């Protein structure tokens, strides 16, 4: 402990009496991680999580600011100083209960929230020390108590509310759908979740890899909802198996929430995308995660394994694809991104982890074609160098191609991770559901009400590809509005 020479035990004994100055002097507690060499070839989780001692010391750093600036940065408004204080006092049960008041997937958000842009961005400690890295590790503390809770016997089920006799259909089991389901069932409504896939969790199970979010955690949260009385039906593709109109008119649902996500993969539109060995990140990650192709041939779904892999994109999805490729045995993984490093939308921690594990970044380069061999398989990605020009609408400097700068990057596998649009299956069969030019469902932002009576929507299908916590926030907001609608019948 460089900045505070006090021994940890000593510090803890005085935890309640520390002055703000003393709190500020405590260095940020490191979170143990598995070394890059060890983890880059397996699927186990990378950060190991705080132990109790480190968690409590980290909690001691919080200044318990009256104005709670960190809470402003949290899309669901978790009472951060309150739960951190409970950790400091050793009341982990109280801490997790406090978080669960606003956040029903703490073990998930503690791992995947972009905290450095949300809660931690506003932390007074970071501002006082003029270093964003010195913010209180809110996410890691959240993860700590959530994991602590999972390791214990589940507490006696919550008391069941009196049934309202109203029925709600939730379409899609991603974070938006799960959080809406959780709130609605606690309000006494009968809730059924319909999911197109055979497994529940949305992107949490098909997209985000095991080494970042163990699937066990998602299964656990689904199990919790089942205990509360939520019904789950897999393999129901709403719009095909049953339409929204049929749910409302024939199956007796009083309201429908659409949390169908942004699952439509965008392709580059360059020649050669039809070659063997070109995947959308969705397909690559779905094969790897949902279908567990990394265990092939123990499981039946194969995935192309290649020595040299090129991943196009610079977001979380691209990082996940690149790191998955390493774990599937690739020798060289190159991430091709058309802007510079500062514009990369991925979480800082993921970029850092990818780099540590050996993913190479080819910045300011853009694919113009994919080249194949005579058997129709990929052999290289043809790219052009880019320069940053004037800022565009998003405020980021727009990349422009440098004429005559084409070059070929050898690769046997190309993974396209340049974004996703809303999945149109449910909306295309419901003509009276309004969508915008990009296919997103148009809703009243305060309630999630769509243009169709009784139908609400939220999450990525409304926001475009966003984040887990925003999707959850949307699910909860819609749940409140649905409850009101069911009570009053007013639209």
């Amino acid at each position: 402990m460089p900045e505070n020479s006090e021994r940890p035990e000593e510090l803890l004994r005085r935890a309640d009496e520390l002055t703000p100055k003393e709190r500020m002097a405590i260095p940020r507690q490191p979170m143990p991680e598995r070394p890059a060499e060890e983890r880059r070839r397996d699927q186990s989780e990378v950060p190991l999580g705080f132990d109790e001692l480190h968690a409590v010391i980290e909690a001691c750093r919080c200044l318990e600011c009256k104005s709670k600036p960190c809470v402003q940065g949290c899309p669901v408004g978790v009472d951060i100083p309150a739960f951190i204080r409970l950790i400091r006092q050793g009341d982990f049960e109280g801490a997790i209960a406090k978080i669960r008041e606003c956040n029903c997937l703490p073990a998930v958000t503690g791992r995947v929230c972009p905290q450095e842009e949300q809660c931690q961005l506003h932390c007074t400690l970071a501002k006082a020390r003029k270093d964003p890295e010195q913010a209180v590790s809110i996410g890691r503390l959240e993860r700590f108590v959530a994991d602590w809770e999972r390791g214990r016997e589940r507490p006696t089920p919550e008391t069941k509310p009196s049934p309202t006799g109203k029925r709600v259909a939730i379409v899609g089991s991603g974070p938006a759908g799960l959080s809406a389901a959780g709130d609605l069932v606690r309000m006494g409504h009968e809730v059924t979740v319909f999911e197109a896939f055979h497994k529940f969790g949305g992107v949490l199970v098909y997209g985000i890899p095991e080494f970042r979010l163990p699937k066990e955690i998602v299964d656990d949260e689904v199990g919790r909802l089942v205990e509360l009385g939520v019904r789950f039906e897999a393999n129901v593709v709403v719009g095909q198996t049953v339409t929204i109109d049929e749910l409302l008119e024939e199956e007796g649902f009083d309201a429908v929430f659409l949390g169908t996500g942004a699952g439509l993969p965008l392709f580059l539109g360059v020649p050669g995308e039809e070659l063997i060995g070109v995947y959308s990140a969705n397909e690559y990650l779905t094969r790897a995660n949902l279908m567990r192709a990394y265990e092939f041939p123990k499981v039946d779904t194969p995935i192309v394994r290649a020595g040299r892999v090129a991943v196009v994109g610079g977001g979380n999805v691209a990082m996940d694809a690149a790191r998955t490729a390493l774990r599937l045995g690739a020798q060289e993984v190159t991430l091709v991104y058309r802007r510079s490093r500062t514009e990369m939308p991925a979480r800082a921690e993921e970029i850092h982890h990818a780099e540590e594990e050996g993913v190479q970044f080819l910045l300011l380069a853009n694919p113009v074609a994919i080249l194949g061999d005579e058997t129709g398989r990929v052999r290289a990605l043809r790219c052009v160098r880019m320069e940053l020009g004037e800022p565009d609408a998003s405020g980021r400097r727009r990349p422009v191609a440098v004429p005559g700068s084409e070059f070929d990057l050898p690769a046997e596998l190309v993974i396209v991770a340049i974004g996703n649009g809303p999945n149109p299956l449910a909306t295309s069969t419901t003509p009276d559901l309004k969508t915008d030019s990009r296919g997103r469902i148009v809703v009243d932002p305060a309630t999630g009400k769509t243009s169709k009576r009784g139908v609400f929507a939220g999450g990525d299908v409304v926001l475009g590809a966003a984040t887990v916590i925003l999707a959850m926030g949307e699910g909860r907001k819609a749940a409140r509005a649905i409850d009101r609608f069911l009570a009053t019948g007013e639209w």
Partner: protein
Amino acid sequence: MNAVRNRRQLADNIVQLEVEAPRIARRRKPGQFVIVRVRDGGERIPLTIADADASVGTITLVVQVVGKTTGLLAELDVGEAIADVAGPLGRPTHIENVGTVAAVAGGIGVAPLFPIAQALKEAGNRVLGVLGARSASLVVWEDRLRSVSDRFIVTTDDGSYGRPGRVTEALSDLLMEEKVGQVVAIGPPIMMKAVAELTRPLGIPTLVSLNPIMVDGTGMCGGCRGLVGGQNRFVCVDGPEFDGHQVDFDNMMARLSAYREYEAVSLQAAAAHRFGEEGCRLAEEARRAREQ
């Protein structure tokens, strides 16, 4: 879980399964398919809904054993269950009365073709059925296709049954004799390609049903994409039926071979696990696949 209610061996490596799936049975239309996963750890594969009985809530699947998953399906007994069945997926066939339609099936392409031919017949078309197979033992659902056809021809490549030769030859003759407004052809890609090449110079609209490798079947992965009219189309949501004159069959056939070496490994593993290295058909199939 979707229980198998009925099972019939149609040929050496072709089985017909009636599977419980009440929601799907109620809604399905000709041209649509399901994605099945036989068991935990299994692959998701697409299979056409060949028929359905909404009153008892079952759908009919006709499965040709070509690898691990189809092999597992074929071994299911009545009372056993398929872990997951999702659908109906894909767009239904556009059915209209064009006068006379030639409905051409290659092998078990007759399973997806039959409900379409039936619907075309119901819409008032004169239906010319052509059913081709490599050999007599592989001719299935002859009665069904015949029952909805005004004229019917069966062909075998080796001449062991019906008219000797390929379906294209029989079709070519029919097109000379009758004024055909539309051709619907479903079978192996090579056969659909040949049909499309035959009808292209004659300017007869030709519908084919593509069978690329799929994962989700809901437009989420793009793995099923094929080149149609020079554009990448997602077969599971934009198809599976397309204008045969626009389809790049060579690309589609290449893409179907994407996992050949993996499929061989998968079969080998399954065979070795169950029967030892030698002596079962799965092992033979694996050897054949490796050699290809």
